[in-house]
């Protein structure tokens, strides 16, 4: 019987009502009195020296209030990298400055070198077009291999190279891994591309700034997944506005998927402009600007080797990867291809040797950073593709080769050869569940039916593991993070017994406003509708590191639990006073504080009221009020895992791939709201299948973005997918957070690309076409070429 409230129930989402009636408040919906508009002048070339910028004509145009160029920001800081990576030789990564507006050079198409503020958006746009910039175009570097070659044009002259770092993980394991591969009975080698993606949250980025000369306070409304981090970066690194004079509000946000984690120059520009002209300044990206300037995702080129015994027992994985970081280091661009990627390169497997090498490369393209999954999809794709290939070469069933190598349930906690300590898991159970879901025995009949229709049918499988709940601070600090990765929550019990919970996590589709109250209400034995979640406003919330890395519930939810526990403890003190008992004798269950072994009790609501009417409190022992804050810093990452399968049909005439079915068995540990969890998996699957089949970001050799609109960048539509089959009944609760939860936001995007590609290869192989690999996206053209190349 499914629960009807509290943890494990699926109440419908309360936030939906405002979204369904048009009353959501997204950044661009906020109109401030006297607001003005910012429009940016952006580079048309990928690499160029700015000789001069003449703004005089623009400044004289109607409605124009101010024009800014890079010159105006030479004295302020740059947008920093949040994670320091050291190269194998111990040298720190190369870290060129990322200014608010380009100065001296433009480094990618879309790089902003000037901005106009005007009374209307049209006036600002017209004036931006009237700015005369003399920019000498120079040869661009787009391809990573060419960027690393001797004599390549440099993205940043001052660092003398296009290589940001050359990282080894774990460097001490390198020799042993090399040796193991040299001596192995079987080695499978695969070179693959993890295609570059544009996150494409449906709400384009937007920022509106306001400055109050009376108080010296700034307010920034912005499309952010983590307003506190944005405030911190602007205050500490970019503009130097004191943190207590800067309020950052991320209101309703229309999706992020990583792209809204980062601070962008437009945010600093509108703040500076609002102060200068003394009026609010508003900017909203067009979709074309979003394509050019949002941080992109993925973009790895990898060679992976799998060494194994003839029976399929894994001996070693070794990878060499080039990771594109684009023209500037976005805030977490250096963490994504390293600690969110290399550390996962043992997968779900008890393999003894792993060595990962990653070279990060500057190119004249938009910055690349974390996008749903961030590093883990790249690791999973490399592993699960090469494993499939090895299974085929060795004649072993693809699920069996995986089972054979899994970390076994009795081996947890298990330290992987890539250095992470997996706390719990049961990967065999996930595969069992998957097999239950997919009717594997019926596959042959379905394949024959497809064949009758002239189609090739294939079955693709894979497993994945990920590290979520990005934290703990002490570990990430050792690994180079320049920020802590805890989260915070305040539980405020009002006098009338209802509750506001201020959380550092930001909800932009994840349903926190519904799921977090389920936790609090369960703990306090009260109606969840009396619990309200407050998020997205730095002036209301103690602090927070925001939402990414599937961390909201695992990290911030744990902070909510800790703060609620403190409320219960404080309530016990008050109840003890009210019941004239000793605090140690007070028990709290189902919303009642009672004296153990007696029938004396008092309800949560009465205690709340008493907290605010403390007429008879012994004030030296008992403070009035009922409000508690907790910062929670986990002991480890969490490790969701899953087993995925799909059936695809390939039309050999056209190369078109159709996804006939997709099944996902995931272990997310405990689940608070199954409906929301399933929705998160569906969305992730769509992004992963989109990556595998249709999405691709294409720059030409001059650095022009050819896939810069929805006409050229294939966004997945409703008719690209079947109904998904998802299951989360295999649950090995996380052992180190109070909810036992692991995180579900990225799983679908991590686990699905290899299943699709494995499925297409399987279809071709079963159809007698000897194709062993096709790079994503598996567009009809590419599949058709592969088929025809093989025949």
């Amino acid at each position, binding site marked *: 019987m499914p629960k009807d409230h509290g943890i494990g129930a699926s109440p*419908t*989402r309360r936030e*939906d*009502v*405002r*979204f*369904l*009636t*048009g*009353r*959501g*408040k*997204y950044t*661009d*919906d906020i*109109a401030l009195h006297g607001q003005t508009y910012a429009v940016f002048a952006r580079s048309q070339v990928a690499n160029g020296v700015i000789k001069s910028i003449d703004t005089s004509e623009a400044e004289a145009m109607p409605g124009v209030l101010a024009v800014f160029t890079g010159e105006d920001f030479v004295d302020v800081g740059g947008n920093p990298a949040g994670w320091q990576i050291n190269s194998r030789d111990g040298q720190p990564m190369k870290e060129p400055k990322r200014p608010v507006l380009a100065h001296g050079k433009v480094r990618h198409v879309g790089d902003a070198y000037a901005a106009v503020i005007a009374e209307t958006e*049209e006036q600002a746009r017209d004036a931006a077009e009237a700015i005369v910039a003399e920019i000498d175009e120079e040869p661009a570097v787009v391809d990573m291999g060419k960027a690393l070659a001797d004599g390549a044009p440099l993205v940043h002259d001052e660092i003398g190279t296009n290589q940001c770092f050359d990282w080894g993980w774990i460097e001490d394991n390198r020799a042993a891994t090399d040796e193991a591969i040299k001596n192995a009975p079987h080695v499978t080698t695969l070179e693959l591309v993890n295609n570059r993606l544009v996150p*494409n*949250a*449906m*709400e*384009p980025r937007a920022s509106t700034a306001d400055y109050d000369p009376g108080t010296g306070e700034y307010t920034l409304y912005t499309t952010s997944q983590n307003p506190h981090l944005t405030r911190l970066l602007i205050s500490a690194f970019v503009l130097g506005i004191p943190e207590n004079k800067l309020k950052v509000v991320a209101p*309703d*946000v*229309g*999706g992020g*998927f990583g792209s809204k984690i980062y601070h962008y120059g437009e945010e600093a520009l509108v703040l500076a402009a609002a102060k200068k002209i003394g009026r609010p300044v508003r900017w*909203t990206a*067009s*979709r*074309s600007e979003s394509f050019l300037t949002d941080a992109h995702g993925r973009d790895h080129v990898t060679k992976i080797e799998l060494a194994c015994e003839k029976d399929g027992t894994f001996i070693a994985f070794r990878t060499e990867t080039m990771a594109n970081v684009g023209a500037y280091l976005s805030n977490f661009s250096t963490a994504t291809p390293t600690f969110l990627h290399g550390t996962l390169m043992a997968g779900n497997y008890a393999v003894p040797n792993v060595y990962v090498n990653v070279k990060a490369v500057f190119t004249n393209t938009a910055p690349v950073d974390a996008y749903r999954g961030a590093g883990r999809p790249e690791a999973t794709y490399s592993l699960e593709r090469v494993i499939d290939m090895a299974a085929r070469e060795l004649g072993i069933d693809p699920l069996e080769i995986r089972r054979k190598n899994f970390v076994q349930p009795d081996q947890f906690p298990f330290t992987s050869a890539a250095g992470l300590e997996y706390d719990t898991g049961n990967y065999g159970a996930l595969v069992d569940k998957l097999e239950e*879901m997919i009717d594997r025995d019926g596959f042959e009949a379905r394949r024959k039916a497809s064949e009758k229709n002239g189609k090739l049918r294939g079955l693709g499988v894979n497993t994945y593991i990920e590290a979520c709940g990005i934290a703990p601070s002490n570990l990430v600090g050792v690994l180079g993070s320049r920020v802590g990765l805890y989260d915070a929550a305040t539980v405020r019990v009002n006098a009338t017994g209802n509750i506001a919970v201020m959380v550092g996590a930001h909800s*932009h*589709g*994840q*349903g926190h406003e519904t799921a977090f109250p389920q936790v609090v209400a369960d703990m306090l034995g009260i109606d969840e509708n009396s619990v309200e979640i407050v998020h997205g406003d730095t002036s209301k919330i103690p602090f927070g590191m925001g939402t990414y890395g599937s961390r909201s519930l695992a990290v911030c939810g744990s902070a909510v639990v800790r703060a609620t526990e403190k409320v219960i403890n404080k309530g016990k003190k008050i109840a003890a006073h009210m019941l004239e008992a000793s605090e140690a004798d007070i028990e709290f269950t189902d919303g009642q504080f009672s004296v153990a072994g007696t029938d004396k009790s008092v309800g949560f609501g009465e205690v709340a009221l008493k907290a605010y009417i403390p007429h008879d409190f012994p004030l030296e022992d008992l403070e009035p009020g009922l409000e508690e804050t907790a910062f929670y810093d986990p002991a480890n990452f969490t490790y969701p895992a899953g087993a995925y399968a799909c059936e695809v049909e390939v039309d050999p005439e056209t190369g078109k791939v159709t996804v006939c079915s997709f099944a996902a068995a995931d272990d997310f540990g405990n689940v608070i709201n*199954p*409906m*929301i969890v*399933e*929705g*998160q998996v*569906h*969305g992730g*699957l*769509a*992004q992963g299948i989109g990556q595998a089949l249709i999405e691709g970001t294409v720059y030409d050799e001059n650095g022009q973005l050819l896939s810069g*609109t*929805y*006409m050229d960048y294939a*966004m997945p*539509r*409703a*008719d690209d*997918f079947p*109904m*998904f*089959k*998802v299951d989360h009944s295999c649950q090995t609760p996380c052992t180190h957070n109070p909810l036992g939860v692991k995180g579900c936001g990225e799983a*679908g995007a991590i686990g699905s690309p290899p299943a699709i590609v494995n499925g297409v290869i399987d279809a071709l192989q079963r159809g007698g076409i000897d194709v062993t690999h096709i790079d994503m996206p598996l567009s009809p053209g590419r599949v058709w070429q592969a088929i025809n190349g093989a025949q």
Partner: protein
Amino acid sequence: MTSVTMTVNGKSVSGEVEGRTLLVDFLREGQGLTGTHVGCDTSQCGACVVHVDGEPVKACSIFAAEADGAEVTTIEGMANPDGSLGTIQQAFQDHHGLQCGFCTPGMVMSAAALLQENPKPSEAEIRDYLEGNICRCTGYHNIVKAIMAASGQDVSAVAAE
């Protein structure tokens, strides 16, 4: 500048617009009806779908002046007269057919137009009809399910909840 008058959600409204003012901007900036969203600049995402004289229209693809004299319905006009969610809106909530909510107004408006035309669409017909509406969050699974449910079809058998 020209003046336009139209009926929006049952109320007559008018305003001065430039020739280049799009209907979506007239609604959002002029009328404060910010439920209609702008997700692209090439008329492809469908976040801006409204009904003009009963037909679904991408409000970024026509000028405000072209809607002069028309009956326009936006997401703000889709609730029941008592303010409760309309059938399609309720089905979206019941079946978790939205996450961030940004595509949602356009989805609901498109779904309403579909059900007018085809009161009991099949799964394939729904997917086909939504070709012009992009959602990045939901993977469409629950949107399709919600629309089937809104049309009175039994969705209890739809794959894994």
